[in-house]
């Protein structure tokens, strides 16, 4: 087989694995029929049919190669794909060892219409990682701040627990750690916390243990986009758990990234856009 011709086997392989996509297919077919030299390597448009998880991991790796201030982490949530399973909520809670009453990513449920024209809408709600976060400027001690990569973080050792930031967040994305444990108040000896309650949390790459009532007990807490995972080349836990591939993650400042591509969709909108916080979590509606 000559270099210029595409073998039948290679052609079928590309079709079967779904890599070529609609745009590439006519090009290949034309090249084969015309007998004209075809390109050595056909690069399909990235968004088409590539496994989203693999693509987003490549996006993350590419972003990590840039200086931190050049990254702009963002999330796109496709509401048509969300089935409301709450796997993201649960995995987030286990990943971050969240105690009772602390939730980073609840899934809001809404019933729409009237019978027989009814539907349900599920809206996962992580921290919006606003470009203009109203929560940071109200903090009296600068414990919460926007990082150079756009993620709003909390310094647990600095936070005094005044909860002003909770009132200032227009999305109720912050919760307070009131020092509760799952085994308290259910008839078990509160001194004998279960092993899962004594686990270290790893948020912000810091090992912390709530069992000693140290911070983050008494502090405000929020979704971090799993900084401890993404800076190790992994996706946020809610993204990797989503059974419907409804949540996409990456660098909004990387034009090749999936999230940057989707952010240009006419379906993209943000929650409570009118208040000017410029969230970096977009919803495809």
């Amino acid at each position, binding site marked *: 087989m000559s270099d210029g011709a595409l073998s039948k086997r290679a052609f079928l392989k590309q079709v079967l694995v779904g890599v070529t996509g609609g745009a590439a297919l006519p090009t290949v077919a034309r090249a084969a029929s015309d007998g004209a030299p075809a390109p050595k390597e056909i690069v399909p448009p990235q968004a088409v049919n590539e496994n989203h998880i693999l693509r987003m991991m490549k996006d993350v790796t590419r972003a990590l190669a840039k200086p931190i201030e050049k990254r702009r982490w963002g999330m796109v949530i496709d509401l048509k794909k969300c089935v409301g399973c709450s796997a993201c909520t649960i995995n987030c809670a286990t990943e971050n060892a969240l105690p009772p009453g602390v939730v980073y990513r609840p899934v809001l449920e809404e019933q729409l219409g009237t019978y027989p024209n009814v539907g349900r809408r599920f809206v996962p709600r992580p921290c919006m990682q606003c470009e203009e976060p109203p929560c940071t400027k109200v*903090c*009296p001690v600068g414990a919460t701040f926007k990082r150079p990569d756009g993620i709003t973080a909390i310094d647990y050792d600095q936070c005094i627990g005044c909860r002003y930031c909770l009132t200032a967040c227009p*999305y109720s994305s912050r919760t307070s750690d009131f020092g509760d444990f799952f085994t308290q108040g259910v008839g078990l000896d509160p001194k004998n916390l279960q092993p899962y309650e004594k686990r270290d949390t790893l948020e912000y790459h810091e090992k912390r243990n709530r069992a000693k009532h140290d911070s983050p007990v008494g502090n405000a807490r929020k979704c971090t986009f799993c900084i401890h995972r993404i800076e190790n080349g992994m996706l946020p836990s809610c993204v990797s758990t989503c059974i419907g591939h409804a949540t996409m993650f990456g660098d909004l400042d990387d034009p090749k990234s999936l999230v940057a591509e989707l952010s240009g969709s006419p379906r993209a909108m943000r929650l409570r856009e009118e208040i000017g916080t410029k969230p970096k979590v977009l919803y495809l509606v």
Partner: protein
Amino acid sequence: MNSKILKTLWLVAFAVGLFSVAARFFLGKDLAAYNSYIPWGLWVSVYIYFVGMSAGAFLLSTAVYVFKIQRLEPIGKLSLLVALATLAGALVTIFMDLGRPFRFWKVYASPSATSMMTLMIWLYTSYIVLLVVQIRLAMRADLVAASGRPGWFAAVARLLAGKEAPTPARLEKDRHLLGIIGIVGIPLTLSFSGGVGALFGVVGARPYWNSALMPLLFISGALASGAALVAVAFTLFREDRESAIFRDLTLLLANVVLGFLSLYVIFEWAEFSIHLYAAVPAEANAVRLVLFGPFWWVFWLVHIGLGVLVPLAILAPVANRTDPSKVALAAGLIAFTFLAVRVNIVVPGLALEELHGLKNAYSDARLNFNYFPNLWEWGVTAFSYSLVALLFYVGCKNLPLLGPGAGTREGGAR
């Protein structure tokens, strides 16, 4: 009033309060009923309640020391003491409310200039300094006299004013300084009482709070509640009840309290009626929650009924305004029920979902929109009240603030 009943009441409140405070610190978890969706509750309300009273009482004292209204002289020092006692109650309560209270020093060590809370902290730190200086200047002679008497208060008095009796020239100089510091104190106190309103007003995420009227509501509320508390202290505890000064001041204080209360109600009417008429859901729903929600009685019965209409009815006849018991009752109702006004500012602003569906998205006692203070919160509040009462009692016991002629030049105290 029967002092035995008062002392027993105080002792019960203090004991319950102390137990609740101990539980707050030693059980390792926050026992309060507020939660992540309603993160501020009774304690923040008590804090703004006492801060308002402190500011109001201080502003009343400036009528004496800045505006030289001689008729009000007998309550000048009393107002300063009320301002100090209520400020202490406010600070203790907000200390309890912090998730990590022993990090409060960070607000001084690493303040953030963009926060209204930081501004507030700096303003009322300046206010504390100013208040202590005012007390030293206004009561130097009284403090020096107290420093010579036996008991622990002598040490406090000595710390504040020294041991040396002031000369007449020194006293005159003090009086001059009082006026100057009072002038500084007026904008400072207006800034910090209005600033507490701004602390709420700047929160764009909460349409019920996000109003330019909020600082004015707080200033007028401070004046009404602070003046009411001073009126209660004066009419209940002043000793020379048959004197002309007492009768004259009782009438004047009743009028002042009525005026400030009316001003507050006008601002409140403006705020609520505009929200309701415009009927923008985010704003109007919070007002509807206050007026017709599950806690409608806090507004209608406690605030409007006991806090406005009953006092108005009591004080409407001029004759009642010279009757110390009636003035004490009316002013006491205003002062006491003003906590309902504060609760109705804090909680309804938080009690509506910011995003539809949040209420049912995740089930947990700390993630809901129903809030009513629990016994622990009432217990800590009892501690704050008992602390205010204790400071007031200690001040009055050791300084001639309520005796015959107290606060007047003729009375010798000033």
